[in-house]
């Protein structure tokens, strides 16, 4: 028994020394915690698994929160099949009859088919451009050497951290001057600019891990830098490419503020902006509104369920964990 605990303690100190990011003050505190005798031997050994009652409470807690996350979505989807007459009188979740004509009306008469295509076009072109532009820059920041490299990179990173509320005011003025306001191009360029810093950061840190030999072999074969980026760096960066793609897709699809500032004409509007306009016009037609919301949300849910690993990785990479 004694030998066993001594062994464990020994391996602990070994690991402990390896973990260099733990600062000495913290170490002392952890060790101080060890020195304290257990106040209750009964509670002491079990960690969190303290009998069935405790586990049941945890499960109940998790379950209640999980249901509260999903219920509003179910309510939205099922309400979109109800009619204006029954939506406020029949409060059961699942309607008696499914009215698909709400979708038909929203997509054709209310032009949501158009807005849907607009959103797909904006999202597609922004994400594609970001992947090309950010991977080029990420490759350069990681593998090339040029004057002021670190300074430029730091400016990009700084842009992620400094809050700039109200920057849409000068942006509006600028777009007006460039005759880009109320044009898809203006919106797309602004969205690219907004997504670049994080994407460059992700590409750069990932490409830092690329083995030098890969690059050397290619160079000996006479590859230009551009070919190395295309044939070696991009394939190597596939995992992070997925993160960048999914992350920016959700970002652009859900964006509202810039769409509000840039677009006046309904013809160019993406879904989020069109939804707010639609509600302003049909204040209380809830079945139609819910159908429009479902159309807007469905792609997001599908993408999330298919690629949720990438999204999780993106979030944690963004905050540096």
């Amino acid at each position, binding site marked *: 028994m004694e030998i066993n605990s001594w062994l464990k*303690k020994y*391996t602990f100190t070994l*690991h402990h020394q390896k*973990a260099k990011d733990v600062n000495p003050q913290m170490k002392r*505190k*952890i060790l101080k915690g*060890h*020195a*304290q005798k257990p106040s209750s031997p009964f*509670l*002491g050994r079990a*960690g*969190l698994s303290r009998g069935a009652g405790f586990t049941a409470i*945890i499960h109940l807690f*998790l379950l209640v*929160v*999980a249901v*509260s*996350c*999903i219920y*509003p979505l179910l*309510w*939205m989807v099922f*309400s979109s099949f109800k009619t204006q007459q029954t939506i*406020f*009188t029949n409060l059961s979740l699942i309607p008696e009859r499914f009215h698909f004509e709400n979708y038909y009306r929203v997509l054709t008469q209310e032009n949501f088919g158009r807005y849907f295509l607009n959103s797909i076009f904006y999202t597609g072109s922004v994400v594609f451009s970001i992947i090309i532009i950010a991977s080029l*820059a990420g490759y350069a920041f990681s593998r090339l050497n*040029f*004057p002021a490299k670190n300074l430029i990179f730091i400016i990009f990173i700084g*842009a992620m951290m*400094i*809050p*700039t*509320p*109200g*920057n*849409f*005011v*000068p942006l509006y*003025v*600028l777009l007006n001057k460039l005759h880009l306001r109320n044009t898809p191009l203006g919106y797309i360029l602004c969205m*690219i*600019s907004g997504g*670049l*810093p994080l994407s*460059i950061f992700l590409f750069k840190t990932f490409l830092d891990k690329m083995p030098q030999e890969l690059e050397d072999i290619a160079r000996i074969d006479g590859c230009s830098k551009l070919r190395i*980026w295309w044939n070696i760096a991009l394939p190597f960066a596939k995992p992070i490419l997925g993160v960048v793609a999914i992350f920016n897709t959700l970002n652009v*699809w*859900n964006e*509202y503020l810039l769409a509000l500032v840039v677009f006046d004409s309904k013809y160019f509007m993406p879904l989020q902006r069109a939804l707010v306009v639609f509600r302003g016009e049909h204040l*209380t037609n809830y079945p139609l509104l819910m159908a429009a*919301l479902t159309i807007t*949300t469905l792609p*997001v*849910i599908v993408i999330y369920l298919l690629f949720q690993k990438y*999204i*999780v990785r993106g979030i*944690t990479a963004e*905050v540096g*964990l």
Partner: protein
Amino acid sequence: MKLRQVLEDYTFILPAVGIFIIFYIVPFFFIFRLSLFEWDGIGRLSSATFVGLANFKEIIFRDSNWWRSVSNAGWITFIALTFQNSLAFLLALACSKRIVLRGVYRIIFFIPPILSEVVVGMVWRFIINDVDGANIVNQVLAYLGLHQFVRAWLSDPNTALNVVALVHSWKGFGWAFLIFLAGLQTIPREFYESARVDGANSWQVFKNITFPLLVPVIILVAILTILGTMQSFVLIISLVGGELAGYTSVPVLRILWVMRNSSRFGYACALGINLGIILVVASFIQYKFFKKVRDLI
């Protein structure tokens, strides 16, 4: 030859730098310049009147609407920092143990954060709306016999802001949950094992290992919560409706309103700078606060 190589290298970052300078750096500096002018946004910029720091003086001494919106956002942020983040922390603690279905919970908790604020606001408005009193929350209350609590939740000045804060927390907790969970998973298992060998109880483990090691993550979540919540406004537009959402106006809504409805571009820029300074200061205070807490424990 050398110069050619440098130029070749620069072409790799040229598209990124070009777009970034035009659409981020230029507006970033332009906002400071514009904040010193009184300008309606229509005429030529050269015809705008230079007013110096008058815009800032007006914000600080006369603009009660602005400070009201700041304090509204401050209250929502306070709820997010306390309620939302402690909920997220508890859920992360629960899911960091080997518990059945934790993978499923993780997927479900992150559904609200990926939805757009427009959608979330509209769906929740539908659930707690005040159309003809026929909303779900009120019907449930009436069914339970709690008639005195039935009210128009989103237009009642006593409840509107808190409802907004709760919906905001509903949308945000999954995100904080995920970061806390990732933070918990970076703590080496050996720490827990050796603590258990030494007979530390759960509270001691939490107090001496989990919490101190998680302080950097907690600071990060707190600061990002402040930055995100103080600048949020889409959820409020879609939840409460209307251009200027009455009792629930927030700073960015004010800036938009000043720019679009009263056409005072210089003043809108000054408001933006004011909010930026508030955010930086608030983040710094949070940072100091949690450092202190860690040293005290």
